[in-house]
């Protein structure tokens, strides 16, 4: 990559822990996300600069850097790009990166398998079949330290260069069979052991993607899936873990459902679920969702069961329901959405209905009298008797 002087790490944003390819991009990001005035959208250069601008121009104080993760919102720290980051946080970052790399290394089953995949890849490239290795390209920039051992022709494997052909050991058979390729592994040059990291995620995914279609033929996939260990897919998107630790914390926070559920979603609880996107200065955002981290349907299903003793809809005489309620069939045909304000449609409907009923299972004669005469008065909680007698229809 670049010079070794670049603290040996990719540029990252201290405020939100995101990684960037270039310091320039990092700075643009900081200006747009963290040093932008929420009132006039002017982009400043530093945190203190933003604070001063808001005070002088808008007479407003801000208490934290916008869009920053908790713990990194200090407005006083003068950080510009990678400069100004406290040494302690740099150490922490380095440690985290190391841990991540370690984790990936331990996932590797054997270096030879990965090297096979590498040569397989090259063969695929050479024969014009584009291998699909979603996990590999993001890894490439991180592996140059490992690369020097490889034969020069093999290095740019993400670059898909045909001239690599001469560099391929001639003993490897065409890439159609994954099994034969693996058995040939001892013949590989000593470079086989050098490239431990990126190929493993490529392994399970390269082999299935040998042929052009999206998925391999099932038989092959069965073998390969059973043959190679299912590596955790965390490598496929590096965004998930290191750059958004706050999110993973928040999701675990949400996962423990608070069964209180006594009030409608309140801002404090939702603040915990959105730590990074909350603009602390003046705006908050609110997630319109029940507090528990279960789906709306699950939430509702448990409520409905809760109310199973109350008839779901229709007349009080209808049988008390079990889950969901078995309504008397008459209910469906005459039940109409009756919001009070829509006088128009309702007039049209009754005339409509009798003609439409025959296709239904219900008996048509039931409809008119109930419709005009005794309107069903649901007693259940979900349908308070808004339907005033007769006339509103």
């Amino acid at each position, binding site marked *: 990559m670049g010079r070794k002087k670049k603290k040996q790490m990719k540029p990252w944003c201290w405020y939100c822990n995101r990684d960037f390819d270039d310091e320039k991009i990092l700075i643009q990001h900081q200006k747009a996300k963290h040093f932008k005035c929420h009132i006039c959208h002017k982009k400043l250069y530093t945190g203190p600069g933003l604070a001063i601008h808001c005070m002088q121009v808008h007479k407003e104080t801000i208490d934290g850097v916008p869009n920053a993760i908790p713990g990194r919102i200090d407005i006083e720290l003068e950080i510009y790009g990678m400069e100004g980051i406290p040494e302690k946080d740099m150490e922490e970052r380095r440690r985290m990166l190391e841990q991540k790399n370690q984790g990936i290394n331990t996932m590797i089953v054997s270096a030879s398998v990965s090297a096979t995949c590498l040569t397989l890849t090259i063969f695929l490239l050479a024969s014009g079949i584009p291998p699909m290795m979603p996990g590999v390209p993001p890894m490439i920039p991180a592996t140059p330290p490992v690369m020097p051992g490889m034969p020069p022709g093999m290095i740019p494997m993400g670059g898909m260069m045909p001239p690599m052909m001469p560099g391929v050991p001639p003993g490897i058979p065409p890439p159609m069979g994954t099994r034969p390729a693996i058995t040939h592994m001892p013949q590989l040059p000593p470079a086989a052991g050098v490239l431990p990291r990126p190929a493993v995620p490529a392994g399970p995914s390269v082999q299935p993607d040998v042929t052009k279609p999206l998925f391999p033929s099932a038989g092959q996939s069965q073998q390969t899936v059973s043959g190679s260990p299912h590596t955790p897919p965390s490598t496929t998107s590096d965004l998930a873990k290191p750059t958004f630790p706050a999110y993973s914390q928040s999701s675990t926070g949400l996962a423990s459902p608070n069964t209180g559920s006594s009030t409608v979603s309140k801002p404090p609880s939702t603040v915990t679920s959105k730590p990074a996107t909350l603009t602390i200065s003046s705006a908050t955002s609110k*997630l319109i969702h029940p507090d528990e981290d279960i*789906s709306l349907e699950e939430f509702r299903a448990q409520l409905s069961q809760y109310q199973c003793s109350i008839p779901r809809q229709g007349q009080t005489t209808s049988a008390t329901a079990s889950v969901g309620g078995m309504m008397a069939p008459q209910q469906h045909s005459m039940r109409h959405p009756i919001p009070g304000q829509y006088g128009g449609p309702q007039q049209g409907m009754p005339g409509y209905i009798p003609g*439409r009923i025959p296709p239904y299972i219900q008996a048509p004669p039931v409809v008119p009298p109930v419709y005009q005469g005794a309107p069903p008065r649901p007693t259940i909680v979900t349908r308070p008797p808004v339907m005033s007698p007769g006339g509103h229809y």
Partner: protein
Amino acid sequence: MSLFGTSSGFGTGGTGVFGSTTTDSHNPMKDVEVTSPPDDSISCLAFSPPTMPGNFLIGGSWANDVRCWEVQDNGQTVPKAQQMHTGPVLDACWSDDGSKVFTASCDKTAKMWDLNSNQAIQIAQHDGPIKAIHWIKAPNYSCIMTGSWDKTLKFWDTRSPNPMMSLQMPERCYCADVVYPMAVVATAERGLIVYQLENQPSEFRRIDSPLKHQHRCVAIFKDKQNKPTGFALGSIEGRVAIHYINPPNPAKDNFTFKCHRSNGTNTTTPQDIYAVNAIAFHPVHGTLATVGSDGRFSFWDKDARTKLKTSEQLDQPITACCFNQNGNIFAYASSYDWSKVCDNKSLQLLGQYSCYVCVYARERLLPYDKHLDQCHWAVYCAWTNQKGLPILALMTAA
């Protein structure tokens, strides 16, 4: 990461369908309302496949029923039939020949409804409510795929009471989509699994979720060769992720965008963030529609990464949507989804709520015109005036 620009919202014109009301917020888009809608919230909508002539719409609801309407060319809807479960219906789908409808319910069963005979028989059984049901038509087999809150994904030959195959999932199934040979299932705890269906279904890959909140809906999209190539995933946090399975450049090709939020750029008031309830892809143009708890639907172009239009706000959340087989009808269901309520007490305060299924008729979205850097769309709207006669109006926007 929000990469979507916005274009102006769509204005409605022409006469309204119903008598004028002070606030027509139950149908602000003046779309055709389906007659005899279900009595409770609608959980799913599906149009009949191209193998059948005409457009038939099925909708499952929390009133334990699934109804079928015929949508005629003039926009009129005709209720045709319905079937019942003993629990709320959560999902429904058609067989590929259009003769059968499969329904999945909270009563832990799935049924096959033969429309010709109007008979329904049970074809599947789970240990928990079945949340997703899809028909799989492979060259060498056909089956039903059911995903349930019992954390299993089962495949059923409709003739046998035992599943052909049962796959274990890490968590409860929240949503799924199938476009042969690919199937995607999104589960609780932000799980995301892709299955491949050739020869027999098997798990292909577990994907790290591109979203940070609970998954709510998923829809597969196809590439120019009509092969499934990725999916759109919606969460409860007003965000949709576009994810390709094997992109040349994942960091660039995969992205997320925000949607179904209030306030826009106004940061002085708290922004309300709504769940994305359903996503549907236009079968011809590949544009996608999202519907949310905020009561709006929006159309998006994922390749140009722009918003094409957003509807006016309905007075209730929109819970389901789908396009018909040739994409000239868009149906959406307006009904309560419980997103705002947490307890019984609040339910009493909720007041009435009602259910509508609106057919957004005959909209044609033309693809994004790259040369002119604009989105052209011509809209043909068919709706009826108070006498029930169709009026056609043509509006173009450059």
